[in-house]
């Protein structure tokens, strides 16, 4: 069991080392990353099986005595997070390879470091170790964000690094305050500590604020849409699947351990969640480029994901976790489509695009199904997630939150329709008519693709855009999105089994006794 717990953290670090040593051979790097993802996914599935009845498992690294050892632990929440995020990361890496984004020799090692940090955060049971794994994750993301080294990347990178460095400093200050008052950083000993030592709540407040920055909660969200649009498309997919989700996970975990049944702070957290939903979706409607809209939507969706912090009931957390699992995949698919469109046409600006649905029907399908899921229309998984959230909100008489869930969905649909009409509908534009049709028999616009191709959106991209992407590369780019589209519909129809898997995890969050027992007796 301890192997399963530690593997998602250790394997990526090992893969990063191998990837650095073999940085001249991309084939080796890809194989190592592929094996790594299978190992992590396998351990995640193993953890889900081990924790499926609301149980929890834990281990002490190096067999040091309890209190000195670094504990790793997993309950249903951790296990489900590992599986959902590693599945999406695997698909994102397929997309990255097809898109040629992994040509930089540091790409694979950096992704491995990022993964180590994320999975470490999901599995650690120690507040200071959580800070360290967060930093591991952030350091990987800092370099990935600025890897292309252009002006836009440097500007975005500066913003991203400063905001996150400030949040990290706050995190350390919070840990110091908690340790100074509570005298421990072990999750098992911190549970319910605020009742014995009320002053430790100050430290936890600081930590909550720091983690809220990383999760992208309003009003601490400003950095997210401004930075995620500047990196490579596949990196955006990876960040979307991993970074904010780690923040949401920590908020849920701390809420379970520290606040517990305490209802004093729940209205505040609910208010922040609703505000995040509303502000994010309004920002998204106002943007005019595909990735801009989708990244602002991330803010809005984080609001949905942290609704359970305010609706702290089994139904609320089950709904939130179900929503999270399907959302990680759905948003990944949408960003993959956005990246493919940018790759094909050289732009993501809606006014320069149009008519892509006629030349690339499968790309349109890969967009429409996840878009409907994001908006929450049946029979997609998003519909089920939103109905569950709505029911949980109304059960506890949170009328405003319930209304927000519905209204924000309408605006989400609006912005998805905006992308659809801008990119896939209407007459082809200069940018999209240069895209070769799937059947070469149909004549391409006169003059050939060479001179009608507009300046590439990212001139510093590693390779020049080849208008004729090979069939295999297109399959690698659109394939993951189509797979998720199909999965979305399947989950939407037979979601009950997934809900039954998630519900015990939600119970363990409400009553973390199994988790605490496991950490104590490890």
């Amino acid at each position, binding site marked *: 069991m301890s192997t399963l717990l530690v593997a998602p953290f250790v394997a990526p670090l090992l893969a990063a080392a191998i990837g650095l040593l073999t940085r001249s051979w991309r084939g080796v790097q890809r194989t190592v990353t592929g094996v790594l993802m299978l190992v992590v996914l396998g351990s995640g599935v193993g953890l889900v099986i081990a924790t499926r009845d609301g149980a929890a498992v834990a281990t002490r690294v190096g067999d040091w005595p309890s209190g000195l050892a670094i504990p790793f632990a997993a309950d249903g929440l951790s296990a489900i997070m590992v599986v959902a995020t590693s599945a999406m990361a695997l698909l994102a890496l397929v997309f990255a390879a097809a898109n040629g984004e992994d040509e930089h020799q540091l790409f694979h090692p950096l992704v491995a470091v990022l993964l180590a940090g994320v999975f470490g955060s999901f599995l650690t049971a120690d507040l200071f170790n959580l800070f*360290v794994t967060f930093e591991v994750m952030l350091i990987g993301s*800092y370099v990935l964000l600025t890897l292309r080294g252009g002006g836009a990347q*440097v500007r975005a*990178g500066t913003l991203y*690094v*400063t905001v996150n*460095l400030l949040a990290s*400093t706050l995190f350390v200050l919070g840990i*110091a305050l908690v340790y100074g008052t509570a005298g421990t950083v072990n999750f098992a000993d911190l549970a319910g500590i605020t009742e014995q030592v009320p002053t430790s709540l100050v430290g936890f407040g600081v930590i909550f604020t720091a983690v809220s920055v990383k999760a992208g909660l309003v009003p601490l969200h400003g950095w997210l849409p401004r930075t995620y649009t500047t990196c490579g498309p596949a990196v955006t997919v990876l960040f979307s699947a991993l970074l904010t989700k780690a923040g949401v996970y920590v908020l849920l975990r701390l809420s379970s351990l520290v606040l517990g049944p305490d209802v004093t702070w729940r209205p505040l957290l609910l208010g922040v969640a609703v505000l995040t939903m509303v502000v994010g979706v309004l920002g998204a409607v106002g943007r005019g480029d595909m990735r801009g809209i989708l990244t602002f939507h991330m803010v809005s969706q984080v609001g949905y994901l942290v609704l359970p912090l305010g609706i702290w009931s089994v139904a609320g957390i089950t709904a939130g976790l179900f929503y999270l699992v399907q959302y990680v995949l759905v948003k990944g698919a949408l960003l993959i489509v956005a990246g493919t469109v940018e790759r094909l046409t050289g732009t993501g600006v809606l006014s320069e695009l149009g008519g892509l649905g006629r030349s690339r029907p499968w790309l349109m399908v890969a967009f429409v199904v996840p878009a409907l899921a994001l908006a929450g229309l049946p029979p997609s998984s998003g519909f089920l997630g939103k109905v569950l959230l709505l029911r949980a909100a109304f059960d506890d008489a949170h009328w405003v939150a319930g209304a927000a869930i519905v209204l924000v969905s309408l605006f989400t649909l609006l912005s998805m329709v905006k992308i659809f009409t801008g990119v896939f509908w209407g007459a082809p534009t200069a940018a999209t008519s240069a895209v070769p049709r799937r059947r070469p028999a149909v004549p391409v616009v006169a003059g050939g693709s060479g001179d009608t191709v507009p300046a590439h959106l990212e001139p510093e991209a590693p390779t020049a855009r080849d208008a004729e992407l090979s069939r295999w590369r297109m399959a690698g780019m659109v394939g993951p999105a189509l797979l998720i589209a199909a999965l979305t519909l399947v989950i939407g129809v037979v979601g009950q089994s997934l809900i039954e898997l998630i519900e015990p995890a939600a119970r363990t969050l409400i009553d973390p006794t199994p988790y605490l027992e496991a950490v104590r007796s490890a």
Partner: protein
Amino acid sequence: MTAAIIVGMLAAGGTYLILQRGIVRMALGFVLLGHAATTLLVASGGVARRAVPFIGAEGDLADPLPQAFALTAIVISFGITAFLLTLAFHGRDVLGHDDVEASVDEVPPIDRDAQEGGR
């Protein structure tokens, strides 16, 4: 009490510097804030009321765990500060300035030939 004053002064200076526009000043601000955090970590082990945690030292020893925390935090913040400074250095080449508030249109990249001719 001494620790509290030190943390307060470092945090005040760090906050002031972070609010500046140049990246180098911000990096220095983060160095100060990092020191504030480190000092607070060490203080949380109860240094003021206990003896140094050396083997063979007399009396009530200070908790060594926060000192390990502090060491880790120093290493991490050192690494990230170095990265931030590299970014500032690279940004001077790419953007021609290190003003984080300037939008792309406001401050165009300096024409390097003209700049070198003016020197």
